């Protein structure tokens, strides 16, 4: 009978929090029955038992956070107990600073632990080194875990002492190993950037009084958001295009649908649904934007997998409407409502918010007129949708009239999308949104 381990419920999941046990110790479970709720870095998910049997052991209490692969429960015969090995404790927040050198003392036990921590299974490193497969262009390559940073022991210790992040250093040793000199150089250049003219104060911690405030530990999701955005804004050459279009027909169409029947589904189709549909259809007409940059190639995707940014408590997720080009307006609207609802309640499956070939982010509901969103890598672009505003416009008869205007921005990865291509896409988007009937056929 098996020991159950913390499952890897998303590609980026490294640890999980046991939110709630749905079975008690000693209770019978059947394969497929919900055993527990587990919070990953992105969502809280129900976790089904892989086995028939009795839940004889629970190793991790509710609220406990453990790494993927650590045992959390044991399913066996009634009365049977799990193997009597030492129970792995819930992960503590270990300080990452390197240990002080210990000249003549030895601590074999801690040395072993350290070895385990710093040596991930071989295949992970191999996986990370291989460029994403290009054989299935309709799905984005899986995100691999960041490979272990190779650094010499003294480089690790120094990095801790000097407060240098090893992840930001390019090692000059064999296979990119970070050496002592690399850390010293990085530390020196960091200091040069921080304050070129001023000599470093003798006791900075005592001299600077931190402003009163509280320190909010990053949640798994916030960590991912931070990593993903840095991975986007730093290496991707962003450029920005903006359009301002006539949203009058859109407002009218929406009003008509609403008026057509309070009870019917069509009443619930929002302006944003039109924008989503238009963004998909425009990508079908200008397919070269539905693409991603990948080292030495540009991947053109067959399907338009539309990612939509949804704000949730403490962050955001981007649920994906798969093969959106095959879905009519009504279906896009329904799918979106379902995904958004579940996203807000952290009830999404990981595959529902991973991937996507481009993203639409709409801050119109928050009163934002225009903005420039950060690309969600490896996607080629992201649309930033503002609010519809009444503005004076000059009509065909050179008359100043009241118009409904909508501003849309497009942040592009210049390696994939050039200005002309982006403009072509926006032109198509404008044509569709200014003629919303086209979106309903």
């Amino acid at each position, binding site marked *: 009978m098996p020991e159950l381990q913390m499952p890897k419920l998303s590609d980026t999941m490294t640890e999980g929090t046991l939110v709630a046990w749905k079975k008690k110790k000693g209770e019978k479970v059947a394969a497929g029955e919900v055993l527990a709720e587990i919070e990953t870095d992105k969502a809280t998910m129900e976790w089904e038992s892989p086995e028939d049997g009795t839940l004889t052991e629970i190793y991790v209490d509710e609220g406990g956070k453990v790494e993927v692969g650590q045992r959390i429960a044991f399913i066996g015969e009634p009365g049977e107990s799990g193997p009597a090995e030492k129970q792995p404790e819930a992960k503590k927040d270990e300080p990452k600073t390197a240990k002080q050198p210990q*000249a003549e003392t030895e601590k074999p036990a801690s040395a072993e632990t350290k070895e385990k921590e710093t040596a991930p299974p071989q295949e992970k490193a191999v996986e990370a080194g291989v460029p994403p497969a290009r054989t299935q262009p309709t799905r984005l390559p899986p995100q691999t875990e960041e490979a272990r940073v190779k650094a010499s022991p003294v480089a690790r210790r120094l990095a801790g002492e000097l407060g240098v992040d090893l992840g930001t250093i390019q090692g000059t040793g064999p296979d990119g190993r970070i050496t002592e000199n690399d850390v010293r150089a990085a530390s020196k250049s960091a200091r040069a950037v921080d304050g070129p003219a001023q000599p470093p104060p003798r006791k900075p911690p005592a001299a600077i009084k931190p402003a009163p405030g509280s320190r909010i530990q990053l949640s798994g999701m916030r960590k991912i958001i931070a990593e993903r955005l840095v991975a986007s804004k730093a290496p991707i050459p962003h450029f920005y295009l903006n359009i301002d279009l006539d949203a009058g027909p859109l407002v009218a169409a929406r009003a008509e649908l609403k008026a057509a029947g309070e009870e019917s589904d069509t009443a619930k189709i929002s302006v944003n649904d039109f924008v989503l549909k238009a963004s998909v259809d425009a990508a079908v007409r200008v397919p070269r934007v539905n693409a991603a940059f990948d080292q030495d190639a540009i991947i053109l995707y067959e399907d338009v997998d539309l990612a939509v940014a949804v704000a949730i408590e403490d962050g955001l997720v981007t649920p994906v409407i798969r093969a959106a080009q095959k879905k009519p307006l009504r279906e896009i609207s329904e799918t979106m409502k379902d995904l958004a609802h579940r996203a807000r309640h952290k009830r999404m499956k990981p595959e529902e918010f991973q991937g996507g070939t481009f993203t639409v982010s709409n801050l119109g509901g928050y009163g934002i007129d225009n903005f420039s969103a950060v690309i969600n890598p490896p996607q080629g672009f992201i649309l930033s949708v503002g609010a519809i505003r009444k503005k004076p416009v000059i009509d065909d008869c050179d008359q100043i009239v009241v118009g409904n205007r909508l501003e849309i921005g497009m942040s592009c990865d210049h390696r994939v999308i050039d200005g002309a291509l982006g403009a072509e896409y926006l032109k198509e988007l404008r044509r569709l949104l200014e003629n919303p009937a086209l979106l309903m056929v």
Partner: protein
Amino acid sequence: MTSEMREITYRQALNEALAEELERDPNVFLMGEEVAEYNGAYKVSQGLLERFGPKRIIDTPISENGFAGLGVGAAMVGLRPIIEFMTFSFSFVAFDQVVNNAPNMFTMSGGQFNIPITFRGPNGPAHQLGATHSHATECLYANVPGLKVCAPATPRDAKGLLKTAVRDNNPVLVLESELLYSSKGMIEPAEIELLIPLGQAEIKREGSDVTVICYAQTVPLALTVAQQLEEEDISVEVLDLRSIKPLDERAIYGSVAKTHRVVIVEQDRPFCGVGAEVCYRIQKNIFDELDGPIARVSQEDVPMPYNERLEHAVLPNAEKLIAAVKKVCYA
């Protein structure tokens, strides 16, 4: 003191040590092949027969097991024998006496018998002596509990360590080097009693980029290479172990904590060599000080060829050491 320092050879230094200890303690005697009438195969015992007479400077037949065993017996009854092997390659004939009898007697007799014996003679490869006469035995003997092993590289260390060895109440091996007998070095005047404790390494040259750990014949090699690399802006610290066992770990860790990079250059063979032990201890005890893997330069793992070019290829040499230093310095 420096103004009174004088320059003598390694051979002279050993001779002084022997004479001083023979003079100081009537229980001390020297025994071995050709040590008396011939003044020593390498002239280390020059003039000692004349000075101390045939009861204390004793020629033996070619029977290492015989006179080594005799030495152990003499030590058991309170004498302090100095047993010279014409070369430590011949000590293998007396392996049982050196490895079994001398170091175990104290514990197996329940502490009744100390064995204050000194085994000495040239050790390690010299020049074209062939496979059977070129053995570096330090790793074999250092492996044996109860034996102390030192391997001096300079006249000063040779004198100071040999005198200390004679005075030690346990078996000590003083591994000399044929190639160093004629080398010269500065030393205190004869009036000053020079005793260098076992288990004390010495920094022969200060440096900041890499520690080269060496002993005996590899010390001059390391110093030459250090000089050469200075021109390439690599600052080499040369740490002479002097004693293999006991090993001066404090000195090793101190130097490595400064340079973070280590090359061990040794005259013995790679497998289970002295460097293997030193390397293990460094990574075990001061792992966080290392900036890269520890490199070793030793003999190649083959019987020593007689052919001069092949011998050069098998021995540790400057090219190999320079390459190793550059590798650990990422240079």
